[in-house]
C-alpha cells in the first residue's frame, strides 16, 4: 500500500489562511446531507478517511486524533474538561460537524468514533491491509527489469513539470472559455462534458436563440454565455473553483446512475496519490473508469492516450484535500507570494502579467488602457465597475480579488488597498441599489383598529411584513404570505358571522 499523503502539510501555515479556514470546507455540508449508510460505506476506505480528515478544521482534527487510539468510549464530561470558557462555542460546532458526518455519533452522551472510520483511519496512518485504497502503482515490464538490474530509482513516469503544464492548460481552457464567452473572441472550446457541467452548475447559460425558444437540438449546439454566478466564480481562488465544479459533478452523479460512494472514494484516492507516479486502472470499478475520462477533461488526470493502461494524477488532483497552492505558477490566479497587481490611490492599476486569462479576468472590472510584454496598465473607473456590477459581480468580490492578487510591493501598505478606492467601489455598488423592490400586497381600508391589529400580528408572526403604518392602518406583506393571510382573514370573518 502506498502512503503519500503526509508529504503535504495539512495545517495552515500562517494566521491569514487560518482565518479563512474558519468556514468549513465546501465538501463538508455535502457530506452532511448524505445518508448514514453511504457515509459508513465511505469510511471503509482508508484513503477516504484520511482525505476527509484533512478537510476538517483544526479543532475537529484535534478531537479525532485524541479519540482515535481509544478502544472504549469515554464520557463527554472528560473531554469537556479540556475546553476553556471561550472555547466552548467552537468546540460545540466542531462536535456538531463531526456528528453530522457520522464520524462521532452521539457526542452528547459518550465519545466513541464510528468503528469503520476508526479502523480505516488507523490503517491509513499505520499502513497495512490490502485494500489498494491509495491506488495501485503501474509497474511496466521495463521498470521491472530496471529494478532487477539495481536501477530502480530511475523514474519512468511523466515528470511533474509536464503534468503541471498539462493541468494548467486544461484548467485555463475552461476558465478562458468562460471569461471570453460574452466577447467576440472564440477561444478553444472545452469538451462537451465540461460544457454540460458548466451549464448544469448555472455558471453558464445558453444564449437565447433568435427564435425565442430553444429546441432540444439547438440547445446542444448553441453558444453558451457566462452567467452572473459564473462571473463570481472567476474571482474565486482556484481551489474553491475546483471544488465548486466537483461538487456539481457529485450532484449529477445520481442522475447518471453512478454510485456516489465510489465517486467520492475515487476522488479521495486521487487526492492521496503521488505526483509524477503512474497508476494502474485495473482495480477501478466501472463507475470509476467513467470518471477517469471526465476528470481527464478537467485536467485532474493525465493519460498518454485515452486507451492507455495507466494514468497519472496532476497537481490539481493531488492537492485536492491540502492547503498548498494548486499549481505552482498558475495563471488562473494563484494565491501566495506571486501576486501581480499594484493599485494606486488614483485608481490606476498595474498588473505584471502576460497571462491572457488573468488579463481577461481583470478586464471584467478594469478599464484597460495599454499593454506591454509583461505589464498591463488600466484604471478602475465608475463605468468599468458598473459593468461588472451589472454582470452580477459584487463589490466585495472585486476587492477580495484585488487583495488576494496584490503584488508583494503592495503588502507593505496598511491597509493593503488604498482606502479611497475600496470605499469608492463600495459606493458605486450602493449607488446601483438605490431602489429596492418587493412583490406583494398592500392591506388597507381596515374598518376597525382591532381587525388591523389582529391581521398585522398574524402577518408578523409568519414573518412577511415589509412595511407598516398604524396611523393609516395599512401594511405591506410579501407575495409568499398572501394565501396564508387571506386564509386567516376568511377564517376570522366566518367566526365573526357565527
Amino acid at each position: 500500500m502506498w502512503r503519500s499523503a503526509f508529504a503535504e502539510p495539512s495545517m495552515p501555515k500562517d494566521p491569514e489562511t487560518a482565518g479563512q479556514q474558519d468556514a468549513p470546507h465546501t465538501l463538508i455540508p455535502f457530506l452532511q446531507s448524505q445518508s448514514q449508510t453511504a457515509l459508513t460505506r465511505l469510511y471503509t476506505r482508508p484513503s477516504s478517511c484520511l482525505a476527509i480528515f484533512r478537510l476538517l478544521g483544526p479543532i475537529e482534527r484535534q478531537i479525532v486524533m485524541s479519540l482515535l487510539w481509544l478502544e472504549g468510549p469515554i464520557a463527554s464530561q472528560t473531554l469537556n474538561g479540556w475546553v476553556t470558557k471561550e472555547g466552548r462555542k467552537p468546540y460545540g460546532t466542531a462536535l456538531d460537524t463531526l456528528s453530522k458526518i457520522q464520524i462521532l455519533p452521539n457526542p452528547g452522551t459518550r465519545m466513541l468514533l464510528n468503528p469503520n472510520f476508526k479502523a480505516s483511519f488507523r490503517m491509513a496512518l499505520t499502513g497495512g491491509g490490502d485494500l489498494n485504497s491509495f491506488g495501485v502503482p503501474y509497474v511496466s515490464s521495463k521498470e521491472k527489469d530496471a529494478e532487477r538490474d539495481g536501477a530502480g530509482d530511475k523514474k519512468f513516469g511523466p515528470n511533474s513539470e509536464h503534468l503541471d503544464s498539462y493541468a494548467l492548460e486544461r484548467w485555463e481552457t475552461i476558465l478562458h472559455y468562460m471569461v471570453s464567452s460574452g466577447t467576440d473572441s472564440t477561444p478553444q472550446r472545452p469538451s462537451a462534458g465540461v460544457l454540460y457541467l458548466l451549464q448544469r452548475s448555472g455558471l453558464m447559460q445558453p444564449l437565447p436563440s433568435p427564435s425565442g425558444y430553444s429546441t432540444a437540438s439547438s440547445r446542444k449546439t448553441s453558444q453558451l454565455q457566462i452567467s452572473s454566478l459564473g462571473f463570481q466564480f472567476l474571482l474565486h481562488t482556484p481551489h474553491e473553483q475546483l471544488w465548486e465544479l466537483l461538487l456539481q459533478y457529485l450532484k449529477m452523479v445520481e442522475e447518471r446512475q453512478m454510485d456516489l460512494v465510489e465517486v467520492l472514494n475515487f476522488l479521495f484516492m486521487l487526492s492521496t496519490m503521488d505526483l509524477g507516479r503512474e497508476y494502474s486502472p485495473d482495480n477501478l470499478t466501472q463507475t470509476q473508469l467513467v470518471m477517469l475520462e471526465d476528470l481527464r477533461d478537467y485536467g485532474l488526470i493525465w493519460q498518454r492516450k485515452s486507451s492507455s493502461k495507466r494514468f497519472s494524477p496532476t497537481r490539481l488532483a493531488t492537492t485536492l484535500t491540502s492547503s498548498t497552492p494548486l499549481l505552482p505558477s498558475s495563471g488562473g490566479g494563484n494565491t501566495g507570494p506571486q501576486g501581480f497587481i499594484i493599485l494606486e490611490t488614483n485608481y490606476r492599476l498595474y498588473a505584471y502579467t502576460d497571462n491572457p486569462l488573468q488579463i481577461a479576468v481583470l478586464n471584467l472590472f478594469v478599464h484597460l488602457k495599454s499593454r506591454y510584454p509583461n505589464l498591463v496598465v488600466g484604471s478602475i473607473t465608475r463605468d468599468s465597475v458598473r459593468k461588472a456590477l451589472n454582470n452580477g459581480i459584487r463589490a466585495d468580490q472585486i476587492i477580495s480579488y484585488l487583495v488576494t492578487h496584490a503584488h508583494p510591493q503592495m503588502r507593505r501598505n496598511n491597509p493593503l488597498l488604498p482606502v479611497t478606492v475600496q470605499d469608492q467601489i463600495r459606493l458605486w455598488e450602493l449607488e446601483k441599489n438605490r431602489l429596492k423592490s418587493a412583490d406583494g400586497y398592500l392591506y388597507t381600508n381596515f374598518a376597525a383598529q382591532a381587525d388591523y391589529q389582529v391581521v398585522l400580528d398574524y402577518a408578523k408572526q409568519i414573518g412577511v411584513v415589509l412595511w407598516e403604518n398604524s396611523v393609516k392602518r395599512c401594511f405591506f406583506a410579501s407575495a409568499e404570505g398572501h394565501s396564508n393571510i387571506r386564509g386567516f382573514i376568511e377564517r376570522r370573518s366566518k367566526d365573526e358571522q357565527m
Partner: protein
Amino acid sequence: MVMKAVKGVLLTCDAAVKQILLVMNEAQSFIIEDLDDFHLLIKQDEEDRIRRQLETELEKNTYSLD
C-alpha cells in the same frame, strides 16, 4: 371584517429618488399609492420600465473624465 388587499410592488428608496419618481409619474402614471417618504406602491408590470427610466435619469447627473 372589512378590508382591501391591493396587489403591487413595494419600492423602497431614498428621498431624492422618490422625487424623481413623482415627476416621472406625472408623465405616465404608475404609482398606486404614495406610502411615506421612502416607500411607494406601484403597478407590478411597470417596474422594469421605471428602473430603466430612473437609471437614465440618474446617469444625467454623473460626469466622467474619459
